[in-house]
């Protein structure tokens, strides 16, 4: 109706900057998908209850369905399309393929973005609900149980959970070795 229901925003997505005029109601998820044609990010529930729309916002994993596009104005967004720079798969992506960490593939972009964010959280020493020794002096070991808890915001109805956990753990070990 009036102009103040729309906003001009700037989004930096996967290292490219986009200027957009958006309906304030538009979510970051819909802006990525419909305005920027970055359809790798999926809409599984649109209410923050499944994790399929997970992206990295200024490096943190968030659900893009509950993030308004206008709120992300000026932010740096990484989507599944931005993970494989220059066409080269990241180890986590490669591990998902090799270990069959998906079936229908619909939750996969969210699982992978979530895993990338989660590994960074873990590297920063963040505890989880299953961290037994939660004293701040220690970084919890990334066990299967830790990965499962930290990834629980990403539902997978095909039941690829065990191979997703394996792919994440294998990647984290490899990255730790390569450091």
């Amino acid at each position: 109706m009036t102009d103040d229901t729309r906003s001009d925003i700037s989004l930096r997505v996967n290292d490219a900057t986009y200027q957009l005029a958006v309906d304030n109601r538009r979510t970051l998820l819909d802006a990525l998908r419909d305005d920027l044609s970055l359809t790798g990010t999926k809409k599984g529930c649109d209410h923050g209850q499944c994790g399929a729309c997970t992206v990295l916002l200024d490096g943190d994993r968030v659900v893009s369905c509950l993030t308004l596009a206008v709120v992300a104005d000026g932010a740096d967004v990484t989507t599944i399309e931005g993970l494989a720079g220059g066409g080269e798969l990241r180890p986590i992506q490669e591990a998902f393929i090799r270990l069959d960490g998906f079936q229908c593939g619909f939750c996969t972009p969210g699982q992978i973005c979530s895993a990338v964010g989660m590994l960074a959280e873990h590297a920063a020493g963040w505890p989880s609900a299953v961290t037994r020794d939660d004293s701040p002096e220690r970084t919890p070991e990334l066990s299967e149980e830790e990965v499962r808890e930290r990834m629980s915001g990403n539902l997978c109805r095909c039941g690829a959970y065990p191979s997703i956990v394996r792919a994440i753990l294998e990647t984290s070990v490899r990255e730790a070795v390569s450091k």
Partner: protein
Amino acid sequence: MREFAYQRTTQIRDALSSVARHDGARFLAGGTNLVDLMKAGVESPARLVDIRSLALGGISESPDGGLVLGATATNSAVAADPLVRRRYPALSQAILAGASGQLRNMATVGGNLLQRTRCAYFADPSEPCNKRAPGSGCSALGGAHHNHAILGWTEHCVATHPSDMAVPLTAFDAVVRYETLDGPGEVPLSEFYLPVGDRPDRETALPDRALITAVVVPAAEVAGKSRYRKVRERASYAFATVSVAAALDVQDGVVRDVRLALGGVASRPWRARLAESALRGGPVTAERISAAADLEVAAAEPLRDNGYKVTLARNLIEAVLTDLAASSGAASGGAAGNGAAGAGEESDG
């Protein structure tokens, strides 16, 4: 979702005056609950005033050794904060037991306190609900209320408060600080959530158009020995069926201080003062813990289909206190003194 205006503010004053000036304006922080409810048609603000650029994201130590949690500090930041983890482990645990990593990265302290019930009838505008549409009735009372309140409800509303974080904050006597155009104010969390009464739509004691700026958690030695335990219908990523935040300070077999609050059982975090009183100052024994748990749930009035929550709440109080008692026993049996004797006495008046 109806169309709305959006503005980002960097000054508290601007945020307050904008919300005061515009009818139907609301503060927006993490948006995990508000945006969700806007999509469902439960909330339809005419304007969103984004407060995440206000300088309210800090977590700092207060002069008395307590904590000041900025209103826009994310749940993740609070849960990972070393001071929180050391001095109020139950607070860190409660936050980590809630939602998902993604949502915790978005959700904020202030928003968490103000989140609305997850009662399915509240979230569905086509259903009667006194909380959403005063006077329309309560669908849950005779409907599907398997996970509704067992304490403090009225026939007007049987919904529960969904927050995990607010449960230990209640146990730790946290205080909510806010700003209004007329100046600052504060209200203890124990008085923050209003009793249900006949107006379940009136949820908090926060003045109209006030902005929560911080939550102050007073220093309490007992909080260092605290624990949060949450039971729900799956292992993670689900709201509480019943949760317990407990802190127990035992010296020479006697309870010096105890804090106990329940989540998932009432329209607000339920401070278990009856159980606390029953335990405080006496020896810590299995019988006394058991009796305290029984005492606290004796007032429970389950609905047709949620009687199991009474048993669950009772057992959970007992389990968490027992675990705390056992671990404090082990601690005092080990490194004697634990460097804590004499400090920070709390009156229980």
